[in-house]
């Protein structure tokens, strides 16, 4: 689920970026903003990006319902490492040694956090919900 969260966030960003690039720079005038809005709501790439970001939000909310915030938060940074690997594999980008060191540190950090207990707080019982409802 954490991996799905990271993939959805990055795919959503990528699609929004691609969609907005086809629209071009937005002018900060009334007519410019209205024109950009019309182009945005009719762009399928942007809708696909929004769908992925919605998927990210659902995954994020679900993960937070069963795991600690301090467990989920560092895992989200794994996206930086995924992006770097994707850039090298698919876009054949050259990555500086400094960026590789950063990626390795993120991976070690995520692995360290991943080895801790995912949840350290109390679980909400369904009965307790009924009492407070």
């Amino acid at each position, binding site marked *: 689920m954490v991996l799905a969260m990271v993939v959805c966030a990055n795919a959503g*960003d990528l699609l929004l970026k691609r969609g907005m690039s086809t629209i071009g720079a937005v002018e900060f005038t009334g007519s410019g903003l209205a024109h950009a809005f019309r182009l945005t709501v009719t762009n399928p790439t942007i809708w696909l990006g929004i769908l992925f970001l919605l998927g990210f939000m659902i995954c994020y*909310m679900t993960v937070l*319902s069963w795991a600690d915030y*301090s467990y989920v*938060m560092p895992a989200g940074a794994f996206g930086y490492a995924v992006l770097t690997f994707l850039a090298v594999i698919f876009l054949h980008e050259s990555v500086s040694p400094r960026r590789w060191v950063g*990626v390795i*540190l993120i991976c070690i950090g995520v692995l360290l*956090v991943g080895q801790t*207990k995912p949840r350290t707080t109390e679980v*909400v019982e369904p009965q307790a919900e009924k009492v407070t409802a």
Partner: protein
Amino acid sequence: MIGTFLLLGLFLCSSTGGEIAMTYGMKATGEPERLRPKELLKFLGRAVCNGWFWVGIPLMAFSFYALLILLSWQPISFVIPASALSNVVGTLGAKYILKEDVNAARWVGVVLVCVGVALVSLDSIPLR
């Protein structure tokens, strides 16, 4: 420069505050029974009825706009590494507000992630 640090502080507080409120709300909502569309929809329905969800969303939206303003004021090579501090502030919030048990391994992991994000961001990622 004082304005930048003030806004950075507001960004860190609102971003962490929003996510802590969201976590609080989701913990109170409880887990979905199964990862199937029907159960997930029920879970989302319960979540949006929780007040903490509606505390978290505006704070997260504010932090997003604060980040955009920061990016318009300062170079990305300063803003993104500085925003990685939200990992540390978030962990402090998790420990003292959400009462999570943050052990040494988790702290070391968070600090490594924080330094790693700063190093990666110094090469200015085009997307995030």
